[in-house]
């Protein structure tokens, strides 16, 4: 009975600690959704292969949100005609490369300053790597049909040629007059309130499940098992990557969950947990389907896992 009581208390601790951060993330995500203009400045975004994802990743500081709030924003960016590199840079890096997540990581690990540098840098590198991996794939094989259609409506054809867009629209010429962009439509405050509240409630349920899994693992998994896995450099990374995928908790709060495992695993495994979850997890697999086609999601998952594994190994090589 005592372990059950302890697990229940840890569950409550994790949940009550994480909830304010989740609320903050959703609030900013809602605000960003409200303020995001439709097309205007999006045409000014750079299209160079390297600069585009860099700018997208850095936009996380202006539009900070966990990966759940991040997906609709990234979708809106891409639908509005932003360069794919920028959209992907934002999609993959912004869940970590933003002030809220950095602050929560600091709150959870004030005694491990290396993590405050390694986590955002790692997320940045993952975003760059994924953008380059997805770059050769044509847009029509990457994006969902609905998103592709919205993007075609917003993409300035006069400025972006057919080959550059790779959208599969045969016959569209670079001198064709641009299609009229849809009129900017800003959400009404009441709609914003309703959407954000529902988003918060949806994510809260996932947080409840994640906290329950984390509390159970922490209480009932024998420490000797964790130690056996955690002390092996590669195995500990793979185990924590798997845990990140299964637990599926938002990046704004996952650092607090990682606290439960931090002492039992290698530094590389800890970093892998904090890097992979915001890009690949079970919850995101559903959310990503509003942006990417299944094949593109699979490519993203495999590539992200490989990059994270390499980073984890490198960190273990440095710190162990």
């Amino acid at each position, binding site marked *: 009975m005592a372990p059950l009581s*302890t697990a229940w208390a840890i569950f*409550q601790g994790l949940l009550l600690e994480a909830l304010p951060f989740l609320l903050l993330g959703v609030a900013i995500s809602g605000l960003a959704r409200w303020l995001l203009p439709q097309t205007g400045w999006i045409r000014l975004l750079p299209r160079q292969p390297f600069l585009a994802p860099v700018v997208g990743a850095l936009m996380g500081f202006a539009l900070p949100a966990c990966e759940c709030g991040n997906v609709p924003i990234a979708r809106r960016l891409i639908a509005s005609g932003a360069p794919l590199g920028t959209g992907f840079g934002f999609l993959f890096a912004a869940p970590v490369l933003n002030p809220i997540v950095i602050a929560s990581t600091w709150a959870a690990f004030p005694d491990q300053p290396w993590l405050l540098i390694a986590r955002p840098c790692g997320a940045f590198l993952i975003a760059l790597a994924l953008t380059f991996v997805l770059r050769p794939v044509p847009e029509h094989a990457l994006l969902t049909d609905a998103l592709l259609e919205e993007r075609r409506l917003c993409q300035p054809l006069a400025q972006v040629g057919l080959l550059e867009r790779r959208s599969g629209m045969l016959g569209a010429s670079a001198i064709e007059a641009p299609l009229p962009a849809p009129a900017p439509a800003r959400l009404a405050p009441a709609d914003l309130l309703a959407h954000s509240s529902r988003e918060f409630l949806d994510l809260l349920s996932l947080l409840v499940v994640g906290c329950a899994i984390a509390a159970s693992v922490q209480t009932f998994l024998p420490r000797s098992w964790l130690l056996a896995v955690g002390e092996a450099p590669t195995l500990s990374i793979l185990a924590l990557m798997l845990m990140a995928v299964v637990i599926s908790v938002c990046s704004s709060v996952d650092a607090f969950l990682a606290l439960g495992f931090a002492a039992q695993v290698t530094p590389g495994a800890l970093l892998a947990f904090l890097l992979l979850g915001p890009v690949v997890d079970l919850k995101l697999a559903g959310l990503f389907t509003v942006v990417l086609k299944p094949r593109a999601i699979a490519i993203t998952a495999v590539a992200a896992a490989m990059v994270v594994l390499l980073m984890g190994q490198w960190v273990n090589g440095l710190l162990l």
Partner: protein
Amino acid sequence: MGQWAAAVRVLAAMLPSLLLALWGWLLFWSSWSGRLSLLLREAFHPLVSLAGALLLLLAVLWWLPLGWRRPPALRLRASGAVPWHWVLSAGAAAAVLAFPPAPSFSDLAATRPTALPDGPVLIFHLPPEQRSLTEWVRLLRSQPDPALHDGAPVRISGFVLERAGQPPQLARLLVRCCLADATPAGLDVAWPGGVAPAVNQWLEIDGTMTVKSVAGRQRPVVVPERITPIPRPERPLEP
């Protein structure tokens, strides 16, 4: 049947605001009732209270027209379809409200590492009898020679921690964030003959710090002169 379906539709339409209010109340009440002291580091308590107040405000705003048109999301749920994960969320909130935390600190400490997080600056000029158990542990770890404190008066409180294969210690839990990262800080006690401390029992001990040979090593040990059972303190977790 029609009335029942209508009632379900109304309930489904109200559900988001009810859930927001439920979670808001949970956070607010957890702060107000002092439950957080058992779960989180004190620095985070205001954040939880603020989040609770915001959720309650959101729940109220949901129903205030404020000159806006009625949110369409209210109509979306009017079909009576309630997402299963919202039901799960409501059940979790109700369970948290109904069953307060009652962790076994000893059980928790048994699975935790013993490395202490960095704490606040030690107050060495405090008289020894005014040092808390945590301050004693940090001091003894920072100064490896236990003989320096031989004979110092001690007045500490903590819970009885029992680890497998070791004699019971008097301990405190240190947290950086929440109970999930709790780390035990324990002191050896030379329990007088006939005293069998109950695990998790909170005790206050007046005594002296001495040095004893344990397994061939000189270790600081508290020799109690008076042992008083006390209730769990209002703030059992330390930074």
